[in-house]
């Protein structure tokens, strides 16, 4: 398998948490991977993106026109990373309905509004978007069970709440279909 994912957002949204979950998924299946973080000087509120390359790779950076999937926790940050997506790739983004038309597969959900409506706590936005990717990306490299196991390994204390949010995101995508 060779699969490259960019996760984009801003400081405080839990971008790095998602990369760690995916890394654990790969590790559990004994698939090699390389990941890296791009955050420069940003603290809370600054742009953050992470690359994870699953399979036989020798450097951690995703080049332009190479990613299979971008998970954008923020609309603008998803678009600012669009150059990394390759043709036939998928953009999963937390954005409003005015998200521009782009020549890729897309799964756009307005997770911010759901959080404002208190369907889930905002701290779970990252997990909600991961669930959205799981349910809407056909070639997503890991199964729901694998992701749940990794979430538990990551932080058992909040695993129950995270799994609820993950299931909610998956259900919401299924409802749309």
């Amino acid at each position, binding site marked *: 398998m060779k699969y490259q994912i960019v996760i984009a957002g801003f400081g*405080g949204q839990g971008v790095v948490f998602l990369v760690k979950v995916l890394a654990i998924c790969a590790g559990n299946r004994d698939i090699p991977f390389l990941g890296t973080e791009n955050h420069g000087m940003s603290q809370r*509120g600054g742009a953050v993106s992470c690359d994870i390359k699953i399979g036989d790779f*020798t450097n951690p950076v995703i080049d332009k026109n190479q990613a299979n999937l971008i998970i954008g926790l923020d609309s603008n940050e998803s678009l600012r990373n669009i150059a990394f997506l390759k043709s036939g790739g998928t953009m999963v983004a937390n954005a409003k309905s005015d998200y521009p038309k782009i020549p890729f597969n897309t799964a756009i959900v307005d997770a911010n509004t759901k959080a404002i409506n208190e369907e889930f706590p905002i701290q779970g936005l990252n997990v909600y978007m991961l669930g959205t990717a799981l349910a809407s990306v056909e070639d997503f490299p890991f199964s729901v069970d694998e992701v749940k196991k990794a979430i538990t390994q990551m932080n058992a204390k909040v695993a129950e709440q995270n799994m609820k949010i993950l299931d909610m995101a998956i259900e919401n995508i299924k409802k749309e279909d």
Partner: protein
Amino acid sequence: MKQTLMGNDAIAWGLIHANVDMVSGYPGTPSSEILAGVQKIKRELNLDTYAEWGTNEKVGFEVAYAGAIAGKRTCATMKQVGLNVASDSLMSASYIGNLGGMLLVAADDPGFFSSQTEQDSRVFAKFARIPVLDPSTPQDAYDLTKFGVDLSQEFQIPVMLRPVMRVCHAREIIEMDDETHYNPNKGEFVRDVPRWGAVPRGQRFDQGVSQLERMDIIAEYNWEKFLKPQFEKCNGGKLLIIASGTGDGFVRETLKDLELEADIVKVIMPYPLPVEKIKENFKDYDKVLVMEEPYPCVEEQIADPKVYGKNTGTTHKIDEMKKEEILKAFQKIDFYNGANIYEAPKIDLGFDVPARPPALCPGCPHRDVYYAIMKVFKKKKSIYPSDIGCYTLGIAQGAIDSLLCMGGSVAMASGYSIADPDKQVVATIGDGTFFHSGIPPLLNAIYQGHRFVLVILDNSTVAMTGRQTTPQREHQAIDIKKIVEGMGIECLEHHYSHEMQDNIDFFRDVKTKYENNTTGPTVVVVREFCILDQERAPDFVPNIFVKVDEELCVACDQCTTVYKCPPMAYNEDGKIEIDPFLCAGCAGCLDVVCPTDAFIIDENYLKKGK
């Protein structure tokens, strides 16, 4: 044992598995997690290990180096610009050497992600005449950490490990020792004055001679251990690629992506190199391409008409490694004539996506202090030198005019006050940076009677690199105010207030003092907190959340240009809106910031129970 680790954690485990029990250094991205990682392992395994931050890199280096003289296995960690600060000690240590082992980890930052220079520490190692190891992945970083400590003890010389950011902050599955059999050397200082206390000229000259001989021996060792086995497997042909560190991983992937083949030799120890032995192998190739970052360190050592790299304009000279740059280098030497597969298709979104430049966190008190300083010391009549730390991000508010290096603000303020006496010079420095290198220039300013205002922003943490502790945090007797008073001058003190007017009133008093003070600097310490500091922040943050009264907002840009808090942005109606997920509840914007008082308390938000 397999474990998923970030490069810096891999180095931390490598140190423990190499029986290192003294680690000292100074935080700096991308190196900071190494020492923090050792502290974590120490706690988990209950090890008797010294792993503490020094007040600066020179101090950190010297603590570790003395340990290695006394027979311990030690390590000093820092970022590349930190090595500049430690370089005085390093240059001499390389002559004198050590009985135990000492690994110097200098983490480089090609691409300037969080550094003011792109300098190459491998070149520094060559300048200092110590061996340097260049890992290409976290696995390499683990292996070479262990190897480097052994090498240091074997040759009695400090050894440098030079990971770049894409190694420090990369993550992969590492194969490491199954068990930790921790058995550090016992420290015992052996008196040897001709060696440890070498004075010019005779003893130092002798040490210089043995330093040169040692490098020749290690270059030969480099050949036998690392290079010869690789050259023996080479087939010859059109192109030989010599790759150092990350260059190896990037070039291998590029070749695969482009379906090309070439012999690759990975340089693990870029200095000292067995130059002649490497060059003998060039006869089997038409061209030799060197891939390394950021400076042409290997390329310059093996310069030859067949060698292509940065100095021939073949590979990129600045910015980090990218496969696209390697592809272009292949095109330039006629090794690849196909398309640029790393070019993104042009997509017209119909609008420019706004960038999210680095900014102070929502709720950060630095923002309010800068705002107050600028209200009182007007921009047109002032010069604002500042320093390295989170507060550097005040540059987005227009609150900073110049930046140089750690501790540079204070003596720069001296210089500006002499050169342009009609302006009021107001310098800002954090508590970590003041302790690091801000004290000697303040002494100088008092000694020479330089007139400026120095504002010490004391949040009691090294915030930017991950909130490492500063001296006064754990030893409250070390107080900035007392240090300043100990130099014989007054230190004005202010406790940050979320009511902006209080901060402005304080700086009005500072201005009066400054105007009446004709004999030297006017020094201020502002007691603050870091909003991400879970220990201290809750005592300071009022948890008053804010929203915008759209009727009152006149879209004047004041808040988005001079206050610059990340949750504030224009909405579709052209009015400012506060992102409720980003607002930290600091209430700093309620007072003064909005000329029409459009920021009002969001009573509803309180129910979120923050």
